[in-house]
Every structure is written in structure tokens, then in C-alpha cells.
């Protein structure tokens, strides 16, 4: 028999290292053609750091995203980033990038003000042009300003940015500490179908809503959500390195034994974002890359309970566990009667 059930789970996730003390630097320099170099020590894992960070630099500088080139290759050329982990890059490195871009923007405006015979506070940058609003005669391109600064005044237009948090050691008795920069929020709703004969659980539908603060690049945020839900679902239904834990017997050793989800194992996963801006994050952004893998497991377990009345509290939620639980339940039920 097939039975359906629905399950809810919510989650929150902190941005930044668990004990604080982490920081990131950024360097933005303006080249004489008006493009910018963004230099960071942040590793790109695929989540899109090398995309969202130049987006922020472009926004601050008033130049197109395509005019920012990123270097993040090595420890000789790049300033420190603590690391691509702890859902921290968008927030921490992002803040450093905003700061660096703001610094170099101030230099640009000061140079431009001299050239345009005005003061920096009268100027704005729109699409690479520094201008006095409503006075078309008073405008100059960033490239011309940078060229003049470099080749006429011999000034190197480079801005530094640094952002970090103080380390926060927990109180040994109470654990009191301030371990986070901001929190992101999530809620997931899953519908499953359980085959009571085989114990096989099929996910019929999965809807997730994530508060991510400001989504710097909504397509990449969606990628993180879908990818995370897929990973969390795969963990839940398929994965354990020690299938007979705590025994080390039959430990998985290859992709043949250690089955991760394929295209055909991914259920329909829908996601939406809500944006509650963070305090202190760049443009109000929050870190959300890691948390997306967390709600699926409890939501699926709760949905299975809703469907067939058994709690699977040990992952992975294999058909065997469901079947054993159903049988134990059946035995208990018949004993009661």
C-alpha cells in the first residue's frame, strides 16, 4: 500500500566562523581604461564568489559588472581571506570588497573633482561616467580620470578593504558568547509517498522558502538552495559511509558503494526567497550556502511519520529502516489488542 504524508522543518544558520575572529581583505584598483581589478584571497568552490564579489564592486563603483576582473589565485598576489567556509564569503569578503571599492571611489571622485573644477560631493558615477547630475558638460569617464591620475600625477588608484569580527570565546560554564554575524532563516515543506510493503520513500513535492537577506545574485542563490536541498535529500535517503554503524564493516569505498543522488533521484524541488536585510552585511546580504542542506532530513522524517506513523530517528532513511519500524509498530499494535 502507498501512503502519503507531509512534513515541515525550519532552520536557521549563522554567518561566519563559530568562534568569530575571522576576516577578509580586498583590494580594488582602477586601470587607465576605466575597468577595475578586484583582488581577493577567496577560493571559488563553484558557489559564485567570483561573480557576486565583482557585482558588489561594480555596484559601488558605478561601472558595469563586465568591467571588473577578478584575481584570486595565490597567496603572493592576493590578500587574506580566512577561507571559503562557514557561509562567510558573501558577508565577510563582500564587506571588504564594498569597503575597498568605496575607498578607491573616493580617490576617483577627488581626482575627478580637480579635473572638473568642482568638489567630490557634487559628483556621482553612472555607468562608468563621473558627472555632476544635471550638468552634462561636467562629466568625465573613469578611464580618463584614472589615466590622468596614473600618467599625469603618477598616482596609483587602489583601495583596500578589510572586514572581520572579534574572536568570541565561550564562557566555560555557560557557553555564553557571541558567535555569529547574522542569521539566515529557512522553512521546508515536503510531501512523501511511502510504500508500506517495501519501505521505499518517494518525495512527491518539496517547497522551500529561504530568507537570504539581500540576494546579490538571485540565480546563484537559487543554485545554492536547489543544490543544497538535493544534497540534503541525498544524505537523508541514501548516504552513510558506515551502513552498519558503529561497526566499520562494509564501509563504503567508491561511488559504486557510496550512492549519491543522480538526476533520477532528485525530486521536484521548488524554492522561493524572501529578503530580510541583515544588519551589517553588504547590501543586507546573509550567508546561506550551507544551511540549504539542513531542512530536508527532518522534513522528510516528519513527512514519513505523517504518512505511516513511525519515527525514523537514525539516518539514512533507508527502506529497511522504514520496514523494520513498521514491523515493530505492527507488533506493538497487535500486542496492544
Amino acid at each position, binding site marked *: 500500500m502507498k501512503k502519503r504524508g507531509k512534513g515541515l522543518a525550519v532552520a536557521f544558520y549563522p554567518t561566519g566562523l563559530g568562534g568569530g575572529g575571522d576576516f577578509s581583505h580586498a583590494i580594488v584598483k582602477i586601470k587607465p581604461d576605466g575597468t577595475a581589478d578586484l583582488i581577493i584571497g577567496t577560493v571559488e568552490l563553484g558557489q559564485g564568489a567570483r561573480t557576486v564579489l565583482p557585482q558588489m564592486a561594480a555596484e559601488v563603483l558605478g561601472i558595469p559588472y563586465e568591467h571588473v576582473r577578478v584575481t584570486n589565485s595565490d597567496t603572493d598576489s592576493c590578500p587574506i581571506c580566512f577561507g571559503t567556509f562557514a557561509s562567510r564569503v558573501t558577508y565577510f569578503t563582500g564587506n571588504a570588497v564594498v569597503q575597498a571599492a568605496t575607498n578607491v571611489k573616493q580617490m576617483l571622485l577627488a581626482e575627478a573633482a580637480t579635473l572638473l573644477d568642482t568638489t567630490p560631493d557634487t559628483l556621482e558615477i553612472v555607468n562608468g561616467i563621473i558627472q555632476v547630475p544635471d550638468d552634462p558638460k561636467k562629466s568625465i569617464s573613469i578611464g580618463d580620470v584614472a589615466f590622468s591620475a596614473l600618467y599625469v600625477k603618477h598616482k596609483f588608484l587602489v583601495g583596500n578593504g578589510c572586514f572581520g569580527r572579534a574572536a568570541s570565546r565561550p564562557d566555560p560554564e555557560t557557553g555564553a558568547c557571541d558567535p555569529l554575524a547574522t542569521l539566515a532563516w529557512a522553512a521546508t515543506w515536503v510531501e512523501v509517498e511511502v510504500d508500506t510493503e517495501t519501505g521505499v520513500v518517494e518525495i512527491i513535492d518539496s517547497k522551500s522558502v529561504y530568507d537570504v537577506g539581500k540576494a546579490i545574485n538571485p540565480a546563484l542563490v537559487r543554485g545554492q538552495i536547489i543544490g543544497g536541498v538535493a544534497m540534503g535529500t541525498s544524505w537523508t535517503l541514501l548516504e552513510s559511509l558506515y551502513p552498519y554503524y558503529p561497526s566499520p564493516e562494509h564501509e*563504503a*569505498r567508491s561511488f559504486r558503494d*557510496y550512492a549519491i*543522488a*543522480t538526476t533520477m*533521484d532528485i525530486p521536484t524541488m521548488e524554492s522561493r526567497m524572501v529578503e530580510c536585510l541583515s544588519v551589517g552585511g553588504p547590501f543586507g546580504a546573509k550567508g546561506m550556502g550551507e544551511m540549504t542542506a539542513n531542512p530536508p532530513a527532518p522534513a522528510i522524517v516528519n513527512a514519513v511519520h505523517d504518512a505511516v506513523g513511525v519515527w525514523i530517528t537514525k539516518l539514512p532513511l533507508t527502506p529497511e529502516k522504514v520496514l523494520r519500524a513498521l514491523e515493530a509498530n505492527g507488533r506493538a499494535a497487535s500486542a496492544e489488542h
Partner: protein
Amino acid sequence: MLNQRFASPTDLREACSILGQGGGRTAILAGGTDLMPRFNRRRPGGRPDLLLYLGGLHLDYIRVEGHTLVIGACATHEDIADSSHVREHAPLLAKACSEIGSPAIRNAGTIGGNVCNRASFADGSTALLALDASMVIASESGDRIMKVEDFVTNPFMTYLKPGMIVKEFHIPVMLPEHKWGWQKWGQRRGSFISVTSVAACIKIQDGACSSARICAGAVAPTPFVSKTAPAILEGRPLSESLAEKAGVAVSEEADPQDDTRASAWYRKRIVAILVKRTLIALA
């Protein structure tokens, strides 16, 4: 190292002769889907002195000879799944082969390799057993024919002696009164290795089951043909309760092991259910 040899003969007898000369370790390469991962582990001394490649022998034919479907040992899973001959005369095999691994694996892996590697979960073997297929084994002195059932009984030793090559498989073509079913279950849905597979081929005459070959894979050291299911099914019309009994019978014959993919306990359960479901679908 110096004397290592890659041989790619174009004549079957020549291939047998090369193999028969012996001397050192020999491996036979067809699609490579099982053999190459083993070589890739690069265990010291794991490399053969002679690697005989069958690709030049053109054993990838599929044809119908009278009431027999003949499939060359080097036909790939994709060749078989795609063949109109197989789909018409042994659709069970086409179905089983169409679900082995992923497209790239099916493009390389061969039916001969699937049988010769004697994996407990070899879907090709399980299907061929249900179809009561025979296989032709070539040697320098000529061909001999044997039942696939007699070939796959031992998970550790091969019937092939030096100088022998599996040439082709002979499958009796299905008649209108034959019905077939195939089900496999694994950890996941895409590109998976059978944790349990069931192949069934039954004959219905006058509304009753007149013969039944029910096979199970991955629940014993080798795929096997159920010895107890026919007695339960034969002479009676297929019904749900009969299907369930047959499932229990096959499950009792099964001798699975715990492994990374599933426990023996679960394999015993699932094989009974798969047999039941396969038969109900045929009723």
C-alpha cells in the same frame, strides 16, 4: 614489462590459439567496464602479461536462426536493448540490458563480459537464466554448447579453461503463450547496481501456468533459477496469493549477504516482493 602483449586477433580460432599458448597471466578484454576498473586500482602485480582484446572478432552480431535468437558475446548492452530482434524475441533481455548502468556503460559493456565476470548482481545473467539460454564456447578444436545455468553456478571459478572464449548466446524465441517480467531494485534510481533483481518467464496454457522460470539476482553468490517456485505456480492460474507464495519460496532459496548496499535481511524481504509484483503484473 618487456614481454607484455596486447593481442587483437581477427579470427576466433587464432584468438583461442593465442590464449591456449598460456605462459604468464592472461586477461580477456571486451568492453572493459569490469576489467579496466580492476586494472585502474594499479595493484602491484595486477597487470596481465597478455591482454587479449575481442573487439577484432566481430562477435557483436544479433540474428535469428529458426527458433533461436543468436547474440554474439561482444554485443553491447546497448546493441541488445536497441535490437529489434531482441525486443521481439527476447524482450526480457532487452529490458534487463536497457537498465544496466548508464548509457556510457551500456555502450561499452558486453553480454559476454556480464556473464563471464559472474557478479551476483549481473543483470544479463539473471535475464539469460530466465530465458533458459545456452552459450557457445569456442576453443581451437571447435565449439561446445552449454546452458548458461550450468555456467554461472560458481562465483569464484570459471568454466573457461585456457584457450576458451565465449562466442555467443542462444535464446529460444518467445512464443505467444510466454509471458515475461523484469524488476530490479537498488539503492537509488539512476545508474545503479542491482541490490535485487527478478526475471520471470512463464508459459500460460488454458489459463493456467504450465511452466515457470523465476530467477533472482544479487541475493545469492550468483544469480539463480528458483527450484521451488515452479511447483507452486505450475498447473494453476496465476493469482495474487499464488504470486505471494512464489515470492516467499524464492526468498527462502535466496542466500544473500550483508554488504554496503543493503543488508541480507532487506534483500530477503525485497526479493519476495519483487517476485510477487512481477507475477501479479503477468496475471
